[in-house]
């Protein structure tokens, strides 16, 4: 019996035998990474579904200058997103979405600066940078609310669409977009807009909530008492992921 008992330290520790961290990252951080991988699949599914719908639909053939909205072909994104708040009637393609991209990248920078300050146990800097990040998050959400509102209400003239009503094809003027009607193109285009940017916006919103929690906990000295600011790092991973998703949404929904 006694010969079977191993004394601690008798076996040389090996990489995957337990007791050590082979990936040199804490449990919480690893789980955040694996959650983000699963979230990657969800967003990929949404964006790839968009690609499938777009590939199965006719594209607009002709000069971009002659483009008009129709539900017979997929719209050119830069013709759809060309409005900027306070500049009514001015055509500025993709400018507003560019500003939104800049806001999200900037808030990612302040987040990573908060993480860096956390490594130094510099509570004041963590608070300062978390507040900037929260502000960036709210600004982005506000921009998205405006973008949605504009998309839903549409342009002043609307556009004439050929639709089936009571079994016959009729011409109908459509204003704005919802899940069944869309003045910018086929209804599927509006559906994907709402689902993809909506799902991303939900992520931004929950990220802001987490950031506020982190700010509150560092401001009340919770992480000082714990002796580690690693929680800032974990939430930081989530926030950067939200920025990363936006980079892909920006390219595949607005640019291409």
């Amino acid at each position, binding site marked *: 019996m006694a010969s079977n008992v191993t004394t601690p330290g008798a076996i040389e520790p090996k990489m995957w035998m337990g007791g050590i961290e082979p990936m040199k990252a804490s449990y919480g951080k690893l789980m955040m990474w694996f959650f983000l991988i699963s979230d990657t699949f969800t967003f990929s599914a949404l964006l790839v579904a968009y690609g499938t719908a777009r590939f199965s639909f006719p594209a607009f053939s002709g000069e971009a200058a002659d483009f008009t909205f129709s539900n017979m072909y997929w719209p050119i994104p830069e013709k759809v997103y060309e409005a900027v708040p306070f500049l009514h009637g001015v055509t500025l393609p993709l400018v507003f979405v560019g500003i939104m991209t800049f806001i999200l*990248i900037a808030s990612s920078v302040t987040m990573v600066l908060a993480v860096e300050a956390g490594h130094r146990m510099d509570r004041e800097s963590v608070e300062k940078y978390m507040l900037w990040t929260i502000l960036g998050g709210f600004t982005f959400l506000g921009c998205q609310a405006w973008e949605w509102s504009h998309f839903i209400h549409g342009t002043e003239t609307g556009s004439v669409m050929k639709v089936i009503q009571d079994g016959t094809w009729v011409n109908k003027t459509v204003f704005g977009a919802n899940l069944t009607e869309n003045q910018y193109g086929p209804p599927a285009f509006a559906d994907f807009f709402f689902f993809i940017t909506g799902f991303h916006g939900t992520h931004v919103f929950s990220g802001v909530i987490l950031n506020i929690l982190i700010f509150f906990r560092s401001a009340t000295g919770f992480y000082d008492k714990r002796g580690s600011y690693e929680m800032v790092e974990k939430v930081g991973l989530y926030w950067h992921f939200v920025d990363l998703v936006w980079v892909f949404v920006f390219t595949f929904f607005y640019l291409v």
Partner: protein
Amino acid sequence: MAEVHHIHNQDPNAGAEQRKAIWKTFWILLILTAVEFLIAFTVPHGILKVSIFIVMTIVKAFYIVGEFMHLKHETKSLIWSILVPVIFVAWLILALLLEGNAIFNAVFD
């Protein structure tokens, strides 16, 4: 990573190099986005434009994941356990874009 955790001093110069790397990444991302804008309005629509956009998006993703999310500086096993599952996404893209094309041909050709 591990060594960073144990710096618990109040020296304001601690982490100065990291902060420099953070701002460098910020400028790279900003310039890449600005160039994307330029291309959106100068290059005619086609395979070339789409390819440039995809390459630039992957470069931006590399900087966000590598620097901001710090993955570049993690252990090899962690890097690979994050990157390998993304292969499934590559397959999903290929399969469903071909499917979309087939639907187009069936309906409109």
